[in-house]
């Protein structure tokens, strides 16, 4: 059914393998944001580019079957709310809005730096979903216009 949409077979096969590596790299960048250059914003853009890769290679129809677009919209809104929830937790536990209330841990360890790691994860999800949805909506409006 989707044989004719998207790009050629070579692009599809390469995309099928490489998308998961790009996603993994984005997740790595997000989780090591407090240890190495990168962080939530850069990792989120990498995740958005991975989804965008699928959209370019396989076409819109396949992607809307594979991903639940309205669910992505919910996740995007929920991650913005989660940022506020962490901030209010800081207010109730640490005494100030967005205070660093979790354990500082050991330097150079993955579990360290308190609330920076959860905030990085939330921002990564937020940015990834947002940028992918922007491209999705813009490309969709183009297709409607072309008819």
């Amino acid at each position, binding site marked *: 059914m989707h044989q004719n949409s998207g790009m050629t077979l070579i692009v599809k096969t390469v995309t099928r393998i490489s998308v998961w590596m790009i996603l993994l790299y984005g997740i790595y960048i997000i989780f090591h944001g407090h240890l190495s250059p990168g962080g939530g914003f*850069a990792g989120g853009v990498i995740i958005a580019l991975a989804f965008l890769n699928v959209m370019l290679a396989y076409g819109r129809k396949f992607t809307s079957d594979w991903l639940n677009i309205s669910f992505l919209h919910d996740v995007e809104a929920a991650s913005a709310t989660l940022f506020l929830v962490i901030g209010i937790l800081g207010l109730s536990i640490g005494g100030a809005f967005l205070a660093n209330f979790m354990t500082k841990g050991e330097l150079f360890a993955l579990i360290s730096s308190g609330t*920076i790691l959860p905030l990085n994860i939330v921002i990564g999800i937020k940015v990834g979903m947002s940028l992918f949805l922007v491209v999705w909506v813009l490309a969709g409006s183009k297709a409607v216009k072309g008819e």
Partner: protein
Amino acid sequence: MPVEYWLIFILIVMIIASIAALEMEDILSSIVAIGVVGLGVSLSFLFLQAPDLAIVQFLFEIFAVIILVRAFLKKDYHKEKPSTINKVLAGITVITLAAIFIFSISVFELLPPFGEPLMTTSQYYLDNGAKDTGAVNLVSSIILDYRAYDTLGEVTVLFTAILGAFTILRIKSKSKKDNSELSHASK
């Protein structure tokens, strides 16, 4: 080779690429030239030892080029007619800009040398950042701990922008669908 020479080299490449982007008649070629400019910005961030900014700039450059190519790929018109310029006005603009540049050279000499910031706040971050927050990456500790309000505002801006884009574009496609249904009904 010192950093300054590399920066001057990248700057020259960026200026040539932006002139090419303005002068080329084919839109796809000028999109590629704009991509070269963005790559130059990313490389210069890397030479100035700001890898966080370099990564974000590089990824956003890819993102912007993909969006632009996607937007212009299926258009019939790749060729644009060159715009006609008023030569007198262009000459006045060039002379004014050159004068501003020459008079502002003395301002550039007032800037502190590279690597010696004027503010003591950044020195505080350098001294106590790792101890206060437990994060080794100082950029991360500043944007998510010392100045997390700033990041909250950034997230809010992104959320509002996506909400606006979704609302406007959805109304457009919905009204188009309504129109087609109406025309079907009238037939």
